[in-house]
């Protein structure tokens, strides 16, 4: 039996405004519990919300970036439910008229093609606080610092048909919101999190299968795993004669599975209605034009430019442009020397990215600055060091704040380019290995590598590889 998978994502993006969406309290992460919650955030009797204009501008900016309609006159609604970390007993959100509607996004698939994913809507809402169950024996602590943090919830069309596509979409949204500078993108701190709606149907069926919603996936890996688990589970249920139940499920990273949280029957009736404390959101005159003009170059455009301007292949260009910080770093390394673009891309995506990953660092925290890496690459280009030695230099640079030149100098790693000096070494290697010379001369070309290796060994890798090649070839052919 062939199965078709239908996936839609709801992504919650925390907007990085200074203050909360409806109060003047700060939004910074990690403060002592309840020190960033004012009377409005606590839902004290009599308080009223006042809309943060920056949150509106940031949501509109997202809309512009995905070619969406920005509604002038979007409406805030109350979503009513009781939970201890929801101070007012309702969340202020947008239901009928969200600020952003009808957007689209291109994602790249593994086979090199692209796919367009529809963005149904993105609406503004406030985040809830946090319930802390661990530290209080038999009780629950409430931290309202997060309550009132502005969010946009981005709802996709059910356009994705595999976990990989869903991850590609999520990564693309992540890259856009961080490019725009409207979200810090920090998934560990919950600034960017995702719910996945998944259903399966037999290939050819016109009706959609029953879907489940898996909540609170806060890493790309979890999204992929949770969706794949859910696909398998649903197929199993149907193939063994059962029916998929419409329900909300929770992903458990520990055993890599999902489990039921509540069914549709138990689902809350949120009793939405327009919030009478807030007026429809009128966009300030000229706001959209102003935002449009301030939009940065977005990932797709940047990727195309990298391919065109730096003659990079698609894979490199896409990887480099997936993060604005990485793209900026790359361009600083290249610094206009376009012929260095390919080697720079290799270094940024290779050695540098590996070191960053190993140390769990973001590119903005890299101990080796773009300028320093540029100098290292310049030393390869001008034959001061070989690519192999450069890796050694890079490690030293990573572990100290020394420049490439300092490391090369101190360790005496300059290539031996003096023909006389090299010639002597080459002669000695040939003289020391008559058997290999004979093999080479009898047609075993592979032995050539043996000579190169021995010259390099003798020079501790500092010989200029091209010179060594040339010298060996000419000497051996005599």
């Amino acid at each position: 039996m062939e199965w078709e998978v239908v996936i839609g994502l709801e992504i919650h993006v925390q907007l990085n405004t200074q203050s909360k969406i409806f109060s003047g309290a700060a939004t910074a992460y990690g403060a002592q519990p309840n020190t960033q919650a004012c009377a409005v955030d606590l839902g004290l009797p009599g308080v009223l919300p006042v809309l943060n204009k920056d949150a509106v501008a940031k949501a509109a900016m997202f809309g512009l970036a995905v070619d969406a309609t920005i509604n002038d006159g979007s409406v805030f609604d109350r979503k009513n439910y009781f939970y201890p970390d929801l101070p007012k007993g309702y969340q202020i959100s947008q239901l009928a008229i969200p600020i952003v509607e009808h957007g689209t996004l291109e994602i790249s698939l593994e086979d090199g093609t692209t796919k367009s994913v529809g963005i149904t809507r993105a609406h503004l809402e406030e985040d809830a606080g946090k319930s802390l169950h661990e530290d209080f024996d038999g009780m629950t602590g409430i931290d309202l610092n997060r309550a009132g943090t502005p969010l946009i919830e981005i709802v996709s069309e059910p356009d994705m048909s595999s976990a990989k596509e869903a991850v590609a979409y999520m990564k693309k949204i992540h890259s856009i919101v961080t490019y725009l500078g409207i979200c810090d993108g920090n998934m560990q701190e919950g600034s960017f999190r995702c719910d996945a709606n998944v259903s399966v149907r037999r290939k050819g069926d016109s009706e959609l299968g029953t879907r489940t919603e898996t909540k609170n996936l806060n890493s790309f890996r979890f999204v992929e795993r949770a969706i794949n688990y859910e696909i398998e589970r649903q197929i199993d249920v149907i193939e063994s004669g059962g029916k998929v139940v419409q329900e909300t499920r929770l992903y458990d990273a520990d055993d890599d599975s999902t489990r039921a949280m509540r069914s549709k029957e138990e689902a809350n009736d949120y009793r939405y209605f327009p919030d009478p404390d807030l007026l429809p959101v009128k966009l300030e005159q000229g706001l959209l034009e102003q935002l449009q003009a301030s939009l940065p170059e977005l990932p797709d455009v940047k990727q195309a430019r990298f391919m065109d301007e730096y003659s990079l292949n698609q894979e490199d260009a896409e990887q480099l442009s997936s993060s604005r910080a990485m793209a900026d770093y790359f361009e600083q390394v290249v610094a206009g020397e376009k012929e260095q673009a390919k080697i720079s891309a290799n270094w940024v995506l290779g050695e540098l990215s590996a070191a960053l990953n190993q140390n769990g660092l973001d590119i903005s925290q890299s101990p080796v600055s773009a300028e320093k890496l540029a100098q290292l690459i310049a030393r390869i280009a001008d034959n001061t060091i070989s690519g192999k030695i450069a890796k050694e230099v890079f490690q030293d640079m990573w572990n100290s704040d020394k420049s490439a030149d300092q490391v090369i100098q101190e360790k005496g790693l300059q290539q031996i380019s003096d023909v006389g000096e090299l010639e002597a070494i080459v002669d000695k290697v040939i003289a020391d290995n008559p058997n290999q010379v004979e093999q080479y001369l009898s047609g075993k070309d592979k032995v050539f590598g043996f000579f190169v290796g021995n010259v390099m060994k003798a020079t501790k890798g500092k010989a200029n590889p091209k010179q060594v090649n040339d010298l060996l070839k000419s000497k051996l052919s005599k």
Partner: protein
Amino acid sequence: MHTLTLAQQVRALAEKQFSSEELVKHYVQRIETYDEKLNSFITFTPERALEQAKQADSRAGDVGLLNGVPIALKDIFCTDGVKTSCASKMLDNFIAPYDATVVTKLNQAGAISLGKTNMDEFAMGSSSESSYYGAVKNPWDTERVPGGSSGGSASALAARLTSASMGTDTGGSIRQPAALCGITGLKPTYGRVSRYGMIAYASSLDQGGPFGITAEDCAYMLQAIAGHDYLDSTSVDRPVPDYIAGLSEPVKGMCIGLPEEFFQQGLDADIAAKIEQACEVLKSLGCEIKSISLPNAKLAIAAYYVLAPAECSSNLSRFDGVRFGYRCENPTGLEDMYCRSRSEGFGDEVKRRIMIGAYALSAGYYDAYYLKAQKIRRLISEDYKAAFSEVDAVLSPTSPTTAFKVNEKSDDPITMYLSDIYTIGVNLAGLPGISLPVGFLQGLPVGMQLVSNYFEEQTLLNLGHQYQKQTDHHLQIPSEFE
């Protein structure tokens, strides 16, 4: 001193005929003497008041409009450091940590708060009987109710236990008690006065406003509290006119409409006669009286009892026992804590309205109830809009009856709801309205309501002031409280 109006006291204080301390002491004594008969205060703050009076006396030069005058605040306005209970067991332990904008503005004007007045629990009611702190009594007959929900503020002022007071009006809660207590009460245009710090009942209808002995007193109070507030997004940013200066404008040539729907069968003949007499006075001042129609007026109560409960069911969700207010003893779990805290903390009428509202907003009922009621609301607004294209003010009784007896209607919510038949449409449309005393029936006051177009409070105050210059109903003091 208590026989003077607030405006007269302001002038007397300026002329140093007496000090604020003397004035406040006088009222403190009156409250101590008389309030046990009325139960009009929940929290009485004499020390605070006397302290403020001394400060007011020490101010020199350009003092605030209400400098040194004692007032009373409905216990729905948050006051920093003072219990703010909304007459509910739910908030019996709640000391507000901030001032409502109205309170800040009154403080800035130099007014002195004597305390927090009793009311229907969470402002839900028309009799001030549903208070956790017991029913409020009407000074004209202490076996009768003062009206509601701002009954404490109306009762205290009618008995001259304060110089003016503040109420809130969601469906008639200022105008109806003003009528039943024989004083003047003004509900401003929705958005004229900030709602920040006023504990919400139905956010799209609630509006704070003053009680005064006279329309002139109400003008003083409104002058102090009106204006845009950044903290209330629904408050309107437009200039505040000089209400006091506007009082003495002639009213000759003003056109006043009588909605025929309000003068048909069902209206008590004696009340109709009082209204007719008042119309004669207005005619003598040069006003033209004509009949108009508000065809959808009869739908107002039905629409109100969907919309107000719907909003209240959400507004009152924050009272969950988690952060402040009443929490039940020894909860066995979260749900038990919610259920018992709310069941034990709220009174019957509040619970009734929460349930009606939650029902009206439920999936499958929303369109039939909430949306339908919103449509009716628009129709009612359009009726008034049409009326104001031909008249300057709309006149009717404020209440279909005079003050009724305590417990007379408390078991019959529907009859109680009908007390607000003339006032509710005004809230649905967001218009300003005033209730003025127009005489007595069997010793009980009768009130007349005037309604004007948006932000034309000065028309109401002007008409009221000119009417009161010709009459003395508003100056009568109940004999037990002379």
